[in-house]
């Protein structure tokens, strides 16, 4: 508060140097004093506070100081300190209220001023720092500018130098080229000159040669001769021929023939090569088409222009292939078609391969965005799954095998297992056993029957014999009876001969008969006998029985033929069929009964003839 104390030269005692200092500085107007003092430190020195405050107003000059203060304040616009004077002559009383108000106002003002001062000072500081910063920037930029300017100048200089060099080099190149051209011209001119000179010299030389030749020829040198012992034959042994127009023509022909042969040979080679190359190209084309066409069937394949062209191309090319194979000529169009189609296919293949490459690269770079490509992880998962499955299956198979083994290779000491061993086949075994027993029974039956048959056959044979004997005796009796009346002896003889030779006669008749199916003469009685005989026999068509019956019949017939006219044999009731087979079987002498074998042998032919029996 005491900073603005204006110490006028009222004679105040300067007790402190500070005051005197202030006084020395303050010989100015109060306003300027005021501002100065504002600029100076606002806080008064603590030492001189008291002296400061007491320097202005002492007890002596209260009135003066009040009036002075009043003056000052009124000039500043503050209200007067004095009270309203009542009269002119009376001393004015100090208005304390006004004084206090003035003081307050002054304090407020002081505060405001202080604030303002602070603000201004900070602003000042700020501005000062900004200024410094800007100055430093400015200086830096100036430096930079300088350096860049210098650089630019340096570069320009270098550029200039290089351009100079370039120009020099161009110049040199041009010079060199010119020189080369010049030298070439020189060479050309020298060459022509040399040629000219050479020609001249050659002409001279030729002239000399001609002259020399003339001389040599003219000399008629006897020495130029050939001394030969005897003529040698020609290499090919032929005589020499005169040179005529024909021989000349022949030579020409031969020459052309040689040339033509050579050309033909070469053309053949080239055609062969062409054909091979064409084949290769066509094969390539086919393979390319086959390579590209399976791609169409894959559902993942993106349908875009390329596949469309592939399809169309395949159809086209198929047609072309057929056309080409048909023609197989080397005409222009076919060749062009082939090359064009191959180029097309190649382009398609190339684009396809590029696509594949792109896809692969995409998979590597971008991950699994592309649907068409299985990501590696999915692929791996799939493979793992499949491997697991495979393992499981294998294990299953192993367990099953083990079980099977167990089943089959069971331990032998277990009774139930041994019983159970053939449990599956038990039923079949039973059936088999039944059948066996049946079979055995049947066999036994057959054996029995056979035995019975053989017995019957034996009996039959015996009976027959007996019967034969009876008959023979009966016949004898008859004959005897018959012939005793007339020619006893002769008929006896006849009969005897007939009889004795009955077997012979039989044989004769047998042999005289033709081995054909002929009706044979059989007596009326024979069928009866036959039927008798047959009835006695069982109905089974055994071959030996057949033989028996036949032999019976034949014997019958042979004996009866003497007096009875041939008649047709009635079909007998013997069962069975009469076939050639049977006859052939019968002709085999392998019958079991030995006593019938002889019969069957002798009567084979008759048997053959008698096969009209059913």
């Amino acid at each position: 508060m005491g900073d603005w104390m204006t110490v006028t030269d009222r004679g105040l005692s300067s007790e402190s140097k500070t005051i005197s200092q202030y006084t020395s500085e303050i010989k100015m107007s109060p306003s300027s004093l005021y501002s100065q003092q504002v600029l100076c430190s606002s806080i008064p020195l603590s030492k001189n506070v008291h002296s400061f405050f007491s320097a202005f107003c002492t007890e002596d000059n209260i009135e003066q100081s009040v009036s002075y203060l009043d003056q000052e304040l009124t000039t500043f616009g503050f209200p007067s300190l004095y009270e309203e004077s009542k009269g002119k002559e009376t001393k004015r009383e100090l208005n304390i209220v006004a004084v206090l108000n003035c003081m307050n106002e002054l304090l407020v003002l002081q505060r405001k001023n202080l604030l303002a001062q602070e603000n201004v000072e900070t602003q000042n500081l700020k501005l000062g720092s900004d200024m410094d910063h800007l100055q430093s920037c400015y200086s830096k930029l100036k430096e930079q500018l300088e350096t860049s300017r210098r650089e630019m100048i340096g570069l320009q200089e270098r550029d200039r130098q290089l351009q100079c060099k370039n120009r020099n080099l161009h110049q040199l190149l041009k010079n060199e080229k010119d020189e080369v051209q010049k030298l070439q011209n020189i060479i050309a001119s020298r060459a022509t000159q040399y040629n000219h000179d050479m020609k001249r010299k050659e002409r001279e030389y030729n002239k000399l040669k001609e002259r020399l030749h003339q001389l040599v020829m003219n000399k008629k040198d006897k020495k130029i001769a050939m001394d030969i012992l005897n003529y040698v034959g020609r290499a090919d042994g032929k005589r020499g021929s005169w040179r005529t127009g024909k021989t000349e023509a022949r030579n020409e022909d031969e020459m052309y023939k040689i040339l033509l042969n050579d050309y033909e040979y070469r053309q053949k080679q080239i055609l062969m090569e062409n054909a091979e190359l064409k084949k290769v190209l066509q094969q390539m084309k086919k393979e390319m088409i086959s390579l590209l066409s399976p791609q169409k069937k894959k559902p993942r394949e993106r349908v875009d222009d390329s596949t469309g062209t592939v399809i169309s191309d395949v159809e086209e090319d198929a047609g072309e292939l057929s056309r080409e194979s048909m023609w197989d000529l080397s005409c222009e169009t076919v060749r062009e078609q082939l090359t064009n189609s191959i180029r097309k296919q190649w382009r398609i293949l190339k684009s396809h391969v590029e696509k594949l490459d792109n896809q692969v690269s995409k998979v590597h770079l971008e991950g699994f965005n592309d649907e068409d490509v299985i990501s590696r992880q999915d692929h791996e998962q799939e493979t793992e799954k499949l491997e697991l499955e495979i393992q499981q299956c294998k294990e299953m198979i192993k367990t099953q095998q083990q079980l099977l083994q167990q089943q089959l290779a069971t331990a032998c000491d277990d009774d139930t297992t041994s019983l159970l061993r053939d449990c599956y086949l038990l039923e079949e075994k039973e059936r088999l056993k039944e059948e066996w027993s049946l079979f055995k029974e049947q066999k036994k039956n057959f054996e029995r029957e056979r035995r019975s048959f053989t017995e019957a056959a034996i009996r039959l044979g015996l009976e027959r014999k007996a019967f034969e004997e009876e008959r023979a005796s009966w016949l004898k009796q008859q004959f005897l009876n018959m012939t005793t009346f007339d020619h006893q002896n002769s008929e006896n003889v006849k009969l005897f001969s007939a009889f004795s030779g009955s077997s012979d006669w039989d044989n004769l008749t047998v042999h005289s008969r033709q081995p054909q199916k002929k009706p044979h003469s059989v007596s009326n009685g024979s069928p009866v006998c036959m039927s008798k005989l047959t009835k006695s026999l069982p109905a089974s068509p055994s071959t030996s029985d057949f033989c028996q019956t036949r032999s019976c019949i034949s014997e019958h017939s042979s004996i009866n033929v003497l007096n009875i006219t041939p008649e047709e044999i009635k079909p007998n009731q013997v069962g069975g069929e009469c076939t050639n087979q049977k006859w052939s079987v019968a002709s085999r002498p392998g019958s079991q009964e030995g006593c019938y074998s002889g019969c069957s042998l002798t009567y084979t032919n008759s048997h053959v003839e008698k096969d009209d029996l059913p």
Partner: protein
Amino acid sequence: MNFSEVFKLSSLLCKFSPDGKYLASCVQYRLVVRDVNTLQILQLYTCLDQIQHIEWSADSLFILCAMYKRGLVQVWSLEQPEWHCKIDEGSAGLVASCWSPDGRHILNTTEFHLRITVWSLCTKSISYIKYPKACLQGITFTRNGRYMALAERRDCKDYVSIFVCSDWQLLRHFDTDTQDLTGIEWAPNGCVLAVWDTCLEYKILLYSLDGRLLSAYSAYEWSLGIKSVAWSPSSQFLAVGSYDGKVRILNHVTWKMITEFGHPATINNPKTVVYKEAQKSPQLGLGCLSFPPPGAGAGPLPSSESKYEIASVPVSLQTLKPVTDRANPKIGIGMLAFSPDSYFLATRNGDFAVLSLCWHLSGDSMALLSKDHVCLCFLETEAAVSTACRQLGGRT
């Protein structure tokens, strides 16, 4: 490998008969004919002068001995040793002499290439062919012996005449578009004639048997051109070796180049097998051999035995830079030889001292000859050289 005893020989004149039964060699003025199996002397003929050239006739019945200095040619018969024939060119002189393919005519080239005289042993007749060209390979016969091509030069222009050998009728006569023809050669199939120009100009022309120009080929201009030419035995390829160290192969269908083989100084290709002669004693000169396809010849090494070892790639070949201010520099492909099955081509580049390359008829071996050495190379079926053995032979 066994060697026989050394026989005397003069002027490197030693030739096997075409049927392979006899061996003719010359010693001074004597002609010795030996049996191939026993090397016994079968015949001995004496000529009138030192022999410069001998040649067997195609049917192995006659031998011609040419004595250029005296201008004489003497012909001997193997069947009848007492038969003799002497052809005297007299003042015309003799520069070259050769048989015709039928073995009954002798073609003598007189001095200065004035003319070619055709002497017939059957009829004692003489024919003259004028203006033959004085070049390295002016006469060539087809393999079937029917036609002869002769290079001629009249009025500063090159011509080629084709004769029928049976009656020496002139079949065709045409001019060639060459500056200075250096060589002509028939293809083995006898239908195409290759004609090439001097080394100052790279040009090779191909003519058909009837004289039509089939094709012309020129690889580059101005530098030295063709040095050597070889047909493949199947007539499918024509190998042209040039001074720039490259061999260019032309094919018989289009007569265009199908491939060219270079001969770089450093071999880097790991597929190439390089055979290097191992030094037994510290000598000068080191040769190396490489297959396939072009091979450079082995250099001479005067040690009695040496072996080849496979050198690891990269290998740099020793080459001597030839003097450039002389004519006929020793650069370029000087020698070409196709194998009989046309699978391989052997070439000699630069100045490697290989004097001749020749293949065996079966195609699996090759002989290299240098001045003092002979080297045999065997090929395995997979085109790898299995062994290469060298022996020093005396100067034969």
